[in-house]
Every structure is written in structure tokens, then in C-alpha cells.
């Protein structure tokens, strides 16, 4: 399982962008090719662990699955594959290795709020407010710890 190192890469990238833009991140939008070699469920699980003790703690990871898209030389068209077990044009059946999409592991966008100009450390304030909802529902005691 290499999803934890991928998750840490996602967190690093998001943190760097957040610092540069001086914003708080509430959600990370990831584009994940179905042919990336990454298992989505394992990644979602790992993401939470990778966010621990960072400014991203409590943020959400939103994954958009990207199908494999190939170019069919016969049809002269791009086609999404139905199955990654068969690299052939789904319309005419011509085998193809001209892969145009499907291997992406890309932090596409961030949902952000501007950092507040308050006296308290901004990263704590941000993550606490963003995560209140989920903490209330799932684990009220966790909020105590964080405060």
C-alpha cells in the first residue's frame, strides 16, 4: 500500500499552496485517474492520517475519478475505455496504446477561506471552525482535545 505516501504528497502540495496564498484549506479536490495505481478508499483513509497535526487537519478530500481515455487511430477520435482490462477502442475494437488520460494524481483545486487577522494562531482557528460540523456529529470529545 503506497497510498499513505501519496496522501502525504497531497497534503504537502496543498499546504504549500495554502501558505503561498495565505489561506485556510477546507477541502482538497483531487483528480485521480483510474489507471494511476492508487486505490481510492485506501487513499481517503490515509488522507485523514496524513492531515494529523497539520493546518489541513479536519479538511476533506474530494476525489474525482478520471476514466482512461485513449485515442483511436481508426476512428480518429478520443474514447473513454469501459474497462482497463481491454485497451481497445470501445466503438470499433481497434487495439490502442495511445493513452490520453487516466494516470493523473493531481491536486486540482482547493476550497479555501482567507486567513483571519485575529490574535490567535490562524491555523488553529481555521481548522477548528471548518471541522466543527463533522466533529459534532462523530466525535465531540475530539474537539475538546483540540481546544
Amino acid at each position, binding site marked *: 500500500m503506497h497510498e499513505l505516501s501519496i496522501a502525504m504528497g497531497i497534503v504537502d502540495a496543498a499546504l504549500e499552496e495554502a501558505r503561498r496564498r495565505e489561506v485556510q484549506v477546507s477541502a482538497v479536490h483531487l483528480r485521480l485517474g483510474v489507471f494511476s495505481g492508487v486505490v481510492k478508499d485506501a487513499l481517503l483513509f490515509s488522507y485523514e492520517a496524513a492531515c494529523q497535526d497539520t493546518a489541513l487537519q479536519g479538511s476533506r478530500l474530494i476525489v474525482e475519478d478520471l476514466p482512461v481515455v485513449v485515442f483511436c487511430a481508426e476512428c480518429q477520435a478520443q474514447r473513454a475505455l469501459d474497462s482497463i482490462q481491454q485497451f*481497445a477502442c470501445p466503438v470499433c475494437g481497434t487495439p490502442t496504446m495511445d493513452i490520453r488520460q487516466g494516470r493523473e*494524481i493531481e491536486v486540482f483545486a*482547493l476550497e479555501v*477561506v482567507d486567513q483571519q487577522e485575529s490574535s490567535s494562531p490562524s491555523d488553529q482557528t481555521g481548522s477548528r471552525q471548518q471541522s466543527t460540523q463533522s466533529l459534532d456529529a462523530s466525535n465531540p470529545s475530539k474537539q475538546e482535545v483540540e481546544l
Partner: protein
Amino acid sequence: MSEPRLVEVRRNVLKQNDVIARGLRERFREAGVFVVSLVSSPGSGKTMFLERTLTELQPRYRVAALVGDLATENDALRLARSKAPVKQITTGTLCHLEASMVENALQEWELQQMDFLFIENVGNLVCPSSYDLGENLRLVLMSVTEGEDKPLKYPTIFNTADVAVITKNELAQAVEFDWQAARQNIESVRPGMKIFRLSAKTGAGMEEYLTFLIQQRDEQRAAALGA
């Protein structure tokens, strides 16, 4: 507090690995070393196959190997019998090699002193598929004892590899290995893939594969010198 807004950042998560891999590929090209990586599931015969490869190439070529393993140095010790320089990369809990590990492991080696460098990945058919190591050729191995449908179960790794090597062919009859089905499955996930069937134990089929490797290296050298 202001409303959340969406900002586009478009960051490739594996960019760092890809950048290092590109750098490695460039260094390999300049040094004139042809780099072959091996991926397979545990127990497919990677180490024996590599030992034989090193031994047979060695009279004519300068060869070396990097071996990724979770915890032990057994593979490196076995490969050292070939008398080729071998270095172990112990990955600890990590299930795959990354380009930075290859870069670190190569620090004390003179690439100019090599014709072929082999990189044996950790035995795993899932994780290594995401990481470019800067290699010129990626071989995926599967033994006849693993079943013909392995390519369909692990399409990503088969698709990202350049060559498939069916190992332990001396056992094919005993396990009723269906060669046609295996070939069809490989062709389905990776159209046009070059396939070798061989036995590292008896040596049958090794010659054809080694000839191919040498040919690939010559072609790459010619292209590099021409560029």
C-alpha cells in the same frame, strides 16, 4: 468568516518523483548505461532470473544491479554470486522504489563504468506502477505458476511495462499453463507488448531475451549519440 471559495492549483502529486526520474534518465543517457527495471509479485523468480541475466551478460558487458527489498539482504547476497556489483536498497515498510532512492543508491557508483544497470523493484504488482525510476525498459515478470489471468488482475503494472517475461517455463506442463490465454490477456491490457517465455533454471529462452536486451541497448546508444 468569509465564504469558502474554490481556487485552481493543478499540482501533480508525483511531480517530485517525475522530476528526479527525468534527471536520472538524462544521466543514464549521458553515461551510456542502459537501465532495465524488473517488477513482479513476490516469488515469481525475479532474483534467479536476474542472477542468470547478470552472469550471462558479464563476460561481454559491464553490469550492475540495485535490489529493492523490504527487510532482508538475501537477494543482494544471492546476486553477488554473479560477481557483478550489487547494492541493496532496503525500503523498510515501503512497498515500492522511488526515483530518489535510486538516486541515493547510485551516489558511489560511476555510471560511466557500466553498460547495463538492472533495478529489481520490491515484489509487488500494484505500487511500483505509479513511480518512474528513470529506466529505459521496464520488465514485468510472471511465473507460469501464477495463473494466466495475472495481467487482467493487475492491468496497470502490465500496461506501464514495456516487456513481459514469463518465467519458470520448465514448470509449464506440470501446472497446465495455458500459453494462448496468457498471451491474449497480456495483449488485451497492453497491445503489442513484447513477450518472452523462458526458464532461468534451465536457460531455455534466455538467449533470445538477452539478444533483445543488447539490441535495445545498441539502439538507444545510437539514438543518444545521434541526438
